[in-house]
């Protein structure tokens, strides 16, 4: 999943990165085929090149390796709303068939069953990046017919709704999961499964989806990770694990 997501990023693209799986994919891309990718985190770090994955959106190494560190109001105004982001890479707790995302609540907002962290940067990343990639695990809990809450908008109600909304970016162009890749269909704008892994099947993907999942008539089979990709990812996670458990000594 991470390797497939990383492959979608091209060298030199400007990518606004969410924490978690998006961050792993974006950094893997930089280590492999996209050394000149410009990674931007909402903490204001532009062109960051961390050696380990940040635990938070504002870890120190993001600043130390960045070409520029700007204030947060600036990153959201000049860089994101200013239309300078090629790809916004997002995760979510729930997604619906039009690529709308929920990271806010499970259950009713006023009395949530589960209160999730919230929208953060996602609402405006989803609106303004030239395109969005979403990466999340696919299951009946995450692929739901109706979102409990829309934290960030994909194609909204579908069928041209986004074009009328004033959102400048083209919206989500790929959802990458542990079953394969989904892409929006023309006209309906509903996501369909277009690719699977060697080890997954269309019928398993359909069973893991809470709405009648459209499957493309011909399914691409995604090439498995190469040895180089796997080794780079393994090493990245290993360095990250070490760094995140390192004890801190306060000089006081």
């Amino acid at each position: 999943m991470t390797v497939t997501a990383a492959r979608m990023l091209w060298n030199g693209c400007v990518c606004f990165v969410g924490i978690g799986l998006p961050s792993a994919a974006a950094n893997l891309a930089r280590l492999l085929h996209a050394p000149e990718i410009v990674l931007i985190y909402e903490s204001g770090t532009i062109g960051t090149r961390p050696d380990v994955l940040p635990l938070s959106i504002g870890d120190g190494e993001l600043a130390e390796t960045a070409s520029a560190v700007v204030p947060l109001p600036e990153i959201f105004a000049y860089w994101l709303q200013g239309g300078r982001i090629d790809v916004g890479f997002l995760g979510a707790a729930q997604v619906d068939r039009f690529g709308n995302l929920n990271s806010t609540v499970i259950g009713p907002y006023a009395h949530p069953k589960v209160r999730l962290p919230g929208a953060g940067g996602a609402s405006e990343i989803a609106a303004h990046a030239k395109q969005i990639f979403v990466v999340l695990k696919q299951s009946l809990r995450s692929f739901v017919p109706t979102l409990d809450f829309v934290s960030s908008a994909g194609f909204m109600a579908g069928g041209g709704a986004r074009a009328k909304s004033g959102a400048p970016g083209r919206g989500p162009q790929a959802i990458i999961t542990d079953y394969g890749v989904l892409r929006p269909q023309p006209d309906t704008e509903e996501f369909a499964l277009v690719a699977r892994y060697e080890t997954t099947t269309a019928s398993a993907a359909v069973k893991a989806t809470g709405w009648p999942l459209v499957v493309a008539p011909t399914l691409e089979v995604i090439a498995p990770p190469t040895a180089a990709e796997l080794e780079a990812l393994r090493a990245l996670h290993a360095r990250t694990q070490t760094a995140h458990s390192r004890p801190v000594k306060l000089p006081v």
Partner: protein
Amino acid sequence: MPIVTLKDAIERHVRDGDSLALEGFTHLIPFAAGQEIIRQRRRDLHLIRMTPDLVYDQMIGAGCARALTFSWGGNPGVGSAHRIREAIEQGWPRPLAIREHSHAGMAAAYTAGAARLPFGLLRGYIGTDLARVNDGIRTVTCPYTGEALATVPALNPDVTILHAQKADRAGNVLISGILGAQKEAGLAARKLIVTVEEIVDDLAAPMNAVVLPHWVVTAVACVPGGAWPSYARGYYPRDNAFYIAWDDVSRDRGRFGEWLERYVLGTADFAGFIARLRADGGGP
């Protein structure tokens, strides 16, 4: 301006019922100040922070807050902020009124606040449900193009508290590294308290550095380590291991309560807090 103790600064400037912004986006989070507010048993606070982080997890879990304005409320990279979740889901230890935004919205709100404008403007919240649950999020029609744009009320906290690297003896403050919305939150507030790693004779600030001049600062206190477990660029790194370990500490009400009693309520100040953590075999 005299440099005061953190205890004095909180005693004098933070009242029950105040709206309070302890800003610092992952970096320079004023944890020592948050704990001193818990220690002094402030109540009914309206807490404002883009990412509540562990500092508000602690203050909300301690019962200091009646309301929270925020845009992302988890333990970054780890999972839930359990005390905040429990306050919202169960009203424990007391009901928490929430006003929820996106980061871009809160950034615009602080920016408007610093400029003493009534609202922030952004091309935001498009297609989301946030405006349905926060009636502060509205729209305005552009008088030039006719486009509908989102507005958010300006944020003007009664008190903003920041942590920074240095202040000089006059109270000029230097901030470097990840800046978040610190400057905006500081200039939007009626009063600004800053805790710093050290007091120096001369800031020696490079020309375009972020400096808050003494005449916008209400009080400065020297609290070395005062951002821990967050970090201060140039002084100590983020304590990611502590953030990960906090998941277990704050997951259970009882365990959180014990931690709070022993380390915050049961110590006189931040130095005592660190000393006790170390004496117990943990701590930085």
